[in-house]
């Protein structure tokens, strides 16, 4: 286990610049974040935001230009063997196409130096027991993805890194993957670092999220905190609605939608709004934050960020 209190994963000022003839391309800029033990941490970003580059850095496939990666309190650059405590699924599970699913896991177990005894149980767990002897080149995308999860869990890792794990899965597969991810943390105590651009998935399974945009982490928060912080405003149902609009419009931007109003204001301002409405003689029936989902928040954040790439 990691040292008491230390995050399982710490990225500090991580940067990656790819050399190009036309000048360097900064794929990751000064990314810092921490993931605690047992957390399911979401890493969100649109395509090309730097998610995959960051994940490749933290599993040792790419060397960072600057910054450090610490896993279980140990510097990855100095002690790459710490990756033996990590399982990963990158690029939908790339496998040797000419080998069977089972043989692929055997190769991986040999490479790890252990885990061979778990192969049958894992194949069963991901629903590939009956297809284990088929060559991977005949597998569907979903089957490869599930084999990828089995591969990521082969060495019974303390931390699992999943890069876009639901890509290519059908609805049933997505539900199964969601259940599996939750179970990894809840039942097996594993830390999960999950990258995705499917926000509904992240919203349902993650404890905390970081949003990366143009190589930079632009927000890091709990999912609930993110939804609260980035509230779209407050919805008001009051009568007469014209009087309510007149009382509030000098202080906040007000939009009327039929018999309700939406005002751009923070949740903390709700008591002040209620006081002004009552002082104006308006009957107040409802005053509540406008409920947004992570997708709305994500779009608001990424579209609002300056395009300084």
């Amino acid at each position: 286990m990691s040292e008491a209190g230390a995050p399982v994963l710490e990225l500090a000022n991580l940067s990656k610049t790819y050399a190009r003839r036309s000048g360097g391309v900064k794929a990751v800029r000064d990314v810092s974040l921490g993931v605690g033990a047992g957390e399911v941490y979401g890493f969100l970003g649109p395509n090309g935001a730097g998610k995959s580059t960051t994940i490749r850095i933290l599993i040792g496939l790419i060397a960072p230009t600057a910054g450090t990666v610490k896993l279980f309190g140990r510097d990855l650059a100095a002690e790459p063997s710490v990756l033996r405590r990590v399982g990963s699924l990158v690029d939908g599970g790339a496998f040797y196409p000419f080998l069977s699913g089972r043989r692929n896991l055997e190769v991986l177990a040999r490479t790890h130096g252990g885990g061979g005894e778990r192969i049958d149980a894992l194949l069963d767990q991901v629903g590939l027991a009956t297809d284990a002897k088929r060559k991977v080149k005949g597998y569907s995308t979903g089957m490869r993805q599930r084999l990828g999860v089995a591969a990521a869990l082969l060495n019974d890792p303390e931390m699992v890194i999943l890069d876009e794990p639901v890509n290519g899965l059908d609805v049933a597969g997505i539900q199964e993957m969601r259940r599996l991810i939750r179970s990894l943390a809840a039942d097996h105590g594993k830390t999960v670092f999950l990258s995705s651009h499917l926000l509904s998935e992240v919203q349902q399974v993650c404890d905390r999220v970081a949003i990366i945009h143009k190589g930079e982490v632009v927000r890091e928060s709990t999912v609930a905190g993110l939804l609260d912080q980035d509230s779209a405003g407050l919805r008001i149902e009051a009568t007469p609605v014209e009087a309510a609009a007149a009382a509030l419009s000098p202080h906040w931007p007000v939009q009327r939608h039929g018999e309700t109003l939406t005002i751009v204001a923070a949740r903390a301002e709700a008591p002040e709004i209620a006081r002004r409405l009552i002082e104006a003689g308006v009957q107040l029936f409802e005053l509540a934050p406008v409920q947004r989902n992570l997708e709305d928040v994500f779009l608001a954040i990424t579209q609002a960020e300056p395009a300084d790439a």
Partner: protein
Amino acid sequence: MRDAIAAELLKFRDHRATWGLVWIWPLGLIVIWLLAIGVDLANGGGGEGKGAASAAGWIADSVGFWNVPAHPIGRYLIGAFVAVVFAGEYGWNTWKLVVPHRARSSLIAAKYAVALALLAIGFTLAALLFSGFGWLEDVVTGDPIPAGITAAALFNAHAVGALAAAAPVLLTAAYVSLAAILTRSTVGALVIGLVITTLEQLFRSFAPMLEPFAPGLVGTLYQALPGYHLANLGHWLEAGRALAIPFPSGPFSMSPAASLAIAAAWIAALTALTFRSFRRQDIN
């Protein structure tokens, strides 16, 4: 390390490239010799035979297969196999599956170990079959087998043949493995290996003709490049003396020890570059 080699062996022991580029030698020999014996028998047998009157000549003929790995065609096929072993991981996109779990240097070392071990097994089997079928052909067709052939003499001849083949095989593997890591492409590695091997052979053959145009440069390149040294080592192992190449300015010859040192330096430098390049490589 043993686990890394076992993993590599699991990947390649049944791979199509291993069948087509390694096991093809012993299997191909079986087919060719069976056909040859059949043709001899169809022609009435007891034909011209090998024409080897002495035991030494018969033994030299029977270990002739060891010339194949050092021949350019043999080296092209060796290069193709090494290209698949080293560059295949880029094509299958599988480096990211294994790199996080094992030191990069041990992954590359395991690839060298398995590629060279499979080639050694394939060539040794083929060489032994070549000897065995030579004997069988003489027995079946009634050609006389000279007296004085001993198992020890035959073993020594195989050992010398294997040693003479070792340097070209190792150098080819070194060229192609480096090309595989740098190009990240099986075809790229194969083409580069093929071109370099061909240029190496061409320069060794045509340097005497080029010498009058640039004597200093040609002489220096002839000494520094590995082509002559591979041939010199093979010649020394088989004939017991250094190989002298007639140049317009006089015969060129170097001691086998110097040739061994230069060939070893090339192999070591290319192999070290392969390890270094892979250690520093970003795997996207």
